[in-house]
């Protein structure tokens, strides 16, 4: 900028342009060298802030989530539904809200809920979800009782073979409940034989064994109506089963929030959604900035 002005054209315009471009490239180079821990800090702040202010956002309900709600809503009171909790605490942030909402909807409709798990940590998670569901005013007003309105049969090892055997005899696979009491003592299990006694199967899945196995064995083999709530990582794999082999599909926290809205039981997932969205915005902004910085500095990189 301090050099002599050119004889033709606007004085110093080219120099100013060069300087601005140079400054942009310098900023871009600094951005590319930024410590990744700053990104972690930004994401942490973006996730944390909405939690403190209890911010919520509008969540549009997709047909996949409505499918789960409708499948449960159309069941008559007294019908048996099977809730298969195939996940552990590691996936609870995404999946626990689905389990809670399903229990709230089913129990408030006076459905009889049979809980089981192909993962050892599934039944304890279901117990936690039951505690929360039973505190909901709509459910508490009906005062559902263990063994009559709901039961936890616990864990059974064997993965898909367990589902296969449930198609022959549920009491043979689960002779006792989670606490070791013979299931013959519980009125809820009277008349429950196999999948023909189950009006709807809802599988909450974090992987294997999970939704694939329930679709393949309970759905396709024994013609049970199956719905699924799954982690976001798994959801793209299961979309191929919807709507023919799955009545509904909840994918990750977004799916859980949609189900809460559709069923009318706002809970944790809706509380988390603003954090989710804000963190996504931060990630997208950094992706855009990173790409912009890469493009600006590309000419200065050594060509391979």
């Amino acid at each position, binding site marked *: 900028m301090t050099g002599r002005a050119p004889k033709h054209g606007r004085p110093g315009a080219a120099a100013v342009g060069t300087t601005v471009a140079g400054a942009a490239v310098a900023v871009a180079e600094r951005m590319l060298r930024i410590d990744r821990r700053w990104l972690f800090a930004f994401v942490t702040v973006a996730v944390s802030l909405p939690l403190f202010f209890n911010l919520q956002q509008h969540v549009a309900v997709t047909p996949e989530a409505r499918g789960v709600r409708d499948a449960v809503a159309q069941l008559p009171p007294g019908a048996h539904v099977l809730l298969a909790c195939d996940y552990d605490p590691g996936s609870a942030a995404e999946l626990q809200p689905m389990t809670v909402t399903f229990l709230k909807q089913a129990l408030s409709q006076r459905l009889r809920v049979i809980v089981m798990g192909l993962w050892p940590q599934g039944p304890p998670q279901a117990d936690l979800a039951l505690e929360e569901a039973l505190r909901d005013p709509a459910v508490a007003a009906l005062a559902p009782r263990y063994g009559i309105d709901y039961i936890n049969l616990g864990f059974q090892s064997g993965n898909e073979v367990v589902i296969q055997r449930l198609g022959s005899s549920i009491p043979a696979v689960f002779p006792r409940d989670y606490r070791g009491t013979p299931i013959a003592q519980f009125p809820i299990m009277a008349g429950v034989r196999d999948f023909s006694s189950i009006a709807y199967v809802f599988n909450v899945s974090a992987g294997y064994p999970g939704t694939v196995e329930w679709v393949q064995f309970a759905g*396709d083999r024994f013609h049970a109506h199956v719905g699924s709530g799954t982690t976001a990582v798994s959801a793209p794999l299961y979309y191929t089963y919807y709507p023919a082999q799955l009545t509904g599909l909840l994918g990750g926290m977004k799916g859980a929030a949609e189900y809460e809205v559709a069923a009318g039981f706002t809970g944790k997932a809706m509380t988390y959604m603003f954090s989710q969205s804000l963190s996504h915005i931060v990630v997208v902004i950094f992706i855009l900035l990173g790409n912009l910085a890469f493009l600006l500095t590309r000419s200065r990189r050594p060509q391979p």
Partner: protein
Amino acid sequence: MSVDVGIWIGAFLTLGIFSFLYRDNPVYRACEAVFVGVSAGYWFVSLFWQNVWPKLILNLRDAAGATLHGAGWDERWLYLIAGLLGVMMLLRLAPKIGWISRWPLAFIVGTTAGLYFITYLQSNAISQVHDTLVPLVTAGAGRFLFVPLPFHVDWNAVFIFLGTFTGLVYFFFSVEHKGAAGKAARTGTYFLMITFGASFGYTVMSRMSLLIGRLDFLFGQWLGLLR
């Protein structure tokens, strides 16, 4: 702030794992080792008390009791075969007779293959093809953007058909990807890229959800700062 010791341990372990985001450190490695150890221990105890004890030991005990009381053959003696297969599997730990463990492995592979052969064909092949072959065009008035059409087009089905067809062309290597086949294969790669992008997006969402869950635990259950 919570007064529950379990919550405090959980918070300490969570912060220990998070400390890796700053840099690798001994606290992180200790927390990681605790996680792996507790998981292995939990699985061992859980499988022992929910499988080995009730299914093997109790069934064999009852079978022995029935036989001793003169009931004759009891079908629960068949659990001996399962127990034997389990012991054979453990022989893998003895190098000289480790080959014996191949027998129970062969049993597992054989039964799994038999169990899945028809199921996979039905659920992941025939059903998927059936659901893809839906009418693309049906009778009745339709619309493309703002243009009225004399027939109804199921654009979703058209899109799925195109994606499936061009994706299959991309993986069909018996024909060189030139001309029409090349264009179809290239279109297939776009569909594949969109699929991978959607999977990646879902993965990011999943990981963020886990972070949200942990921060909710730290700020809510541990520190009691959330309403």
